[in-house]
């Protein structure tokens, strides 16, 4: 039986699957947070969620709006200060996976979350680095979750906020990219998405894997859990 779902839902489901078997994951707000909560519900109930606000082992029932919602502190195994979070936990590599987002990503998976346009006279001032630069060099595996568009996937970043060397997966609403020989390569498309469609939405020359896969559609169990989570 096929179930109707959106590509956004599939993106969240694919991101959640990437956390099966992982020990700990650093997450920001929005889709990454939803994916990590879904992973705990469906794939990995022991997954330790770490938020940069200092909550380690948070077990929120609701998808938090901010990384500092009260529920995170109330359900955490421990709550630490910001200096402790970065100096004791992230820097030494104690958190295995990081979920990051960005406004721009280049073929080497470097990220921009600082400005669009010139730094001194930006066309769009973005929020800035936050924790991303040290999270991306501290965690062993970085998973980038981003919308797939030419604006996001660019040949050259306007500003390099965060280094891409540790990126293992880029999960979009069209498919999945992985680094191959130092540049991102399309390794899976979501059901119903063509390679041409991905190419049209990518601002750099897109490498495509010879063994290109089609993402498994959400199972009924995954979709029900995701929708139940969203309705809380």
């Amino acid at each position, binding site marked *: 039986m096929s179930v109707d779902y959106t590509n956004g839902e599939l993106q969240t489901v694919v991101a959640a699957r990437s956390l099966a078997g992982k020990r700990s994951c650093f997450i920001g707000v929005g889709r990454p947070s939803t994916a990590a909560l879904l992973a705990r519900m469906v794939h990995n109930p022991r997954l330790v969620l770490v938020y940069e*606000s200092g909550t380690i082992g948070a077990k929120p029932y609701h998808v938090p*709006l901010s990384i*500092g*919602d009260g529920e995170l502190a109330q359900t955490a195994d421990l*709550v630490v200060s*910001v*200096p402790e*979070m970065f100096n004791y936990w992230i820097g030494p590599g104690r958190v295995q996976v990081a979920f990051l987002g960005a406004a721009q990503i280049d073929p080497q998976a470097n990220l921009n979350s600082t400005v669009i346009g010139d730094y001194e006279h930006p066309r769009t*001032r973005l929020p800035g680095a936050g*924790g991303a630069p040290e999270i991306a060099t501290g965690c062993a595996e970085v998973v980038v979750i981003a919308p797939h568009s030419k604006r996001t996937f660019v040949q050259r970043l306007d500003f390099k906020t965060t280094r891409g060397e540790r990126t293992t997966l880029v999960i979009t609403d069209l498919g999945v990219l992985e680094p191959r020989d130092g540049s991102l390569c399309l390794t899976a498309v979501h059901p119903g998405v063509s390679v041409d469609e991905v190419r049209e939405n990518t601002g750099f020359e897109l490498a495509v894997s010879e063994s290109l896969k089609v993402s498994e559609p959400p199972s009924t169990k995954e979709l029900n859990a995701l929708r139940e989570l969203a309705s809380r």
Partner: protein
Amino acid sequence: MAQIVSLSEAVEATVQDGASVALEGFTHLIPFAAGHEVLRQGRRELELIRMTPDILYDQMIGVGAARRLVFSYGGNPGVGSLHRFRDAVEHGWPRPIEVEEHSHAGMANRYVAGASRLPFMVMRGYEGTDLAAHTNVATVICPFTGEQLAAVPALNPEVAIVHAQEADRDGNVQLWGIPGVQKEAVLAAQRSVVTVERIVDELELRPGGVVIPGWVIDYVAPAPGGSLPSYALGITERDNDFYREWDLISRDREHFQAWMSEQGLLG
């Protein structure tokens, strides 16, 4: 020893035009009431310092109170942009603003150096990013291993203002929940103000609670509900709806000014 005074007295005694002020709070315990009092007293030309300038700094920037911002993440968490901050950087409205930005790890370590009264802290970071060329960071060589590390300069604001759940009558403060960098900010600053939800006869120490003794604080001021629409864990709840509403209020200059005027915050 901390003096327990009214909020207006505490702000008047510490924040002058041109001051460098850190109103800290990492999504939790953001000192909104104190920031609003700074605006009511009409302070201008401020250097505003904070890891995560959110709605409060958007308001202060939007009325033109800041000449400079030192920060690491300027967004409305979970919602999107800070429109007044963007307007100031992108279009110089209502006045141009100078920015100095770091990563969270960089800012946190700048406070640690400041609180330790050390000139700088070392960390791994900045290398290989464009941030390094646009901010105040240097490299040092470890004298023991030869490793090249980033050095970030101490941050010692003239004034730090933070919010906490409670203080006793001697001005000893306790906060709990997400602790952010509040203790570091107070210890790094030359003068400090802590606003509190309540004054109690005796602090009841809590697991994970952070105590800041009254003898390192200059002023404690009662400000019940003083971190709303942020929150004080166990006492008030984060007003997530307002964080979403702010996106609409702040998007348009006139709408923003009308709202600030209604709240008596145009100074």
